[in-house]
């Protein structure tokens, strides 16, 4: 079973040289730490920055330089700053190659719910609805089951949706799965030490298993 770092490491393998990538808050943020050093990858922060660098050293924080999670950050050489309209303009125009974000639920046709739980205080969707509605390549990083032990990979989402038919791939502590265009979670890889049976038990949505499922390499 993977920990959060493991999930981040596995997702980092999906990133290709030359990609522009938008990382959501939580596990996706950790992915930045595992991008191979010899790869040119540019991180987009939707508050208006391309070329996001690591966190600043103590004493070097700049209140004018934050990421979409409101964290103090730095800029790498070749960065560009722009306003929020252009930021979401480039997202809508599909110039960002890969979007990685968390989710509360994903349905077998790629719907995602990650912004609202009825009865709880709603903080808002931020940029998530724009990202999932526009991105061509969306990977969800999440736990396979919620705290109550219920599967988050469902036939249909039960929570209010963030977007429809958009998730392409899911990486959890148990598995890597593709969301097929026709519907269904296709099991690609097992986490180290996890059996296909365990993944079956944790998946309520339609799970497609074909042939031998390899253990993932991280």
């Amino acid at each position: 079973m993977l920990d959060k770092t493991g999930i981040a490491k596995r997702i980092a393998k999906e990133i290709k040289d030359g990609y522009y990538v938008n990382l959501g808050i939580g596990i996706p943020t950790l992915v930045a730490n595992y991008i191979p050093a010899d790869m040119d990858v540019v991180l987009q922060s939707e508050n208006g920055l391309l070329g996001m660098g690591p966190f600043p050293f103590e004493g070097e924080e700049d209140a004018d330089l934050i990421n979409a999670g409101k964290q103090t950050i730095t800029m790498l050489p070749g960065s560009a700053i722009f306003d929020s309209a252009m930021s979401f303009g480039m997202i809508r125009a599909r110039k960002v190659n890969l979007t990685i974000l968390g989710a509360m639920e994903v349905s077998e046709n790629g719907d995602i719910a990650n912004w609202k739980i009825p009865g709880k205080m709603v903080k808002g969707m931020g940029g998530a609805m724009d990202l999932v509605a526009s991105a061509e390549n969306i990977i969800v990083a999440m736990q396979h089951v919620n705290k109550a032990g219920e599967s988050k990979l469902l036939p249909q989402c039960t929570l209010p949706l963030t977007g429809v038919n958009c998730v392409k791939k899911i990486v959890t502590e148990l598995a890597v799965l593709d969301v097929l265009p026709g519907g269904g979670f296709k099991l690609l890889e097992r986490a180290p030490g996890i059996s296909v049976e365990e993944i079956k038990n944790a998946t309520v949505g339609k799970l497609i298993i074909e042939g031998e499922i390899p253990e993932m390499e991280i």
Partner: protein
Amino acid sequence: MNKVFKNADDAIHDVTDRMTLLLGGFGLCGLPENCITAIVKKGVSELTCISNNAGVDDFGIGLMLKQRQVKKMIASYVGENAEFERQLLSGELEVELIPQGTLATRCMAAGYGMPAIFTPAGIGTEVAIGKEVRSFNGKDYLMEMAFDADFAIVKAWKGDTMGNLIYRATARNFNPVMAMAGKITIAEVEELVEPGELDPDQIHTPGIYVHRIFEGVDYEKRIEQRTVAPPKLSPEARS
């Protein structure tokens, strides 16, 4: 053409009850701090505020919320604010949550004289309820309307007396798109200079969009999520 005002109190003198305000900033970054303080001091109420966030309890729009000056908040994300949550749950405050890109683009639409724009954000979700859906090349889009606000209140790094503005780093965020979108736009700047001191090629907001400008004071520039890297090992520590 005198756009220069002495301070925030003068610049916001005619902001009155029940008006709609666009307020620049993202989180606590790039906020028009002086104008918010002046609005709190003036005590106007029943405002509709359009801003990406609602500040925290004791900074940003949170200060206006604390004084019960806000009737309705239009934002994309409103976490990290206990008073906000209390007013919302008690029904004192009305909230409209909209996708961040939709928020930005509805500002741009106003500034570019476009009555409506199309965006796929929110298709198939509750955001789409009651809105026109239209298909282009097999993909569905929502038609979203340009904002119509009485005032846009923004913060820039430098400005000149003709209203030209330059922002700094990610404190740019919503400020340029909101600056274009107000019937009256008020800009507060860290440094106000004379015409000719800013490079025309580097202006982010041309002065034609800015009606009032003043040099702000005492910027606090609070950081919401101070996050730092592990300390650098000094050469001595390493050896």
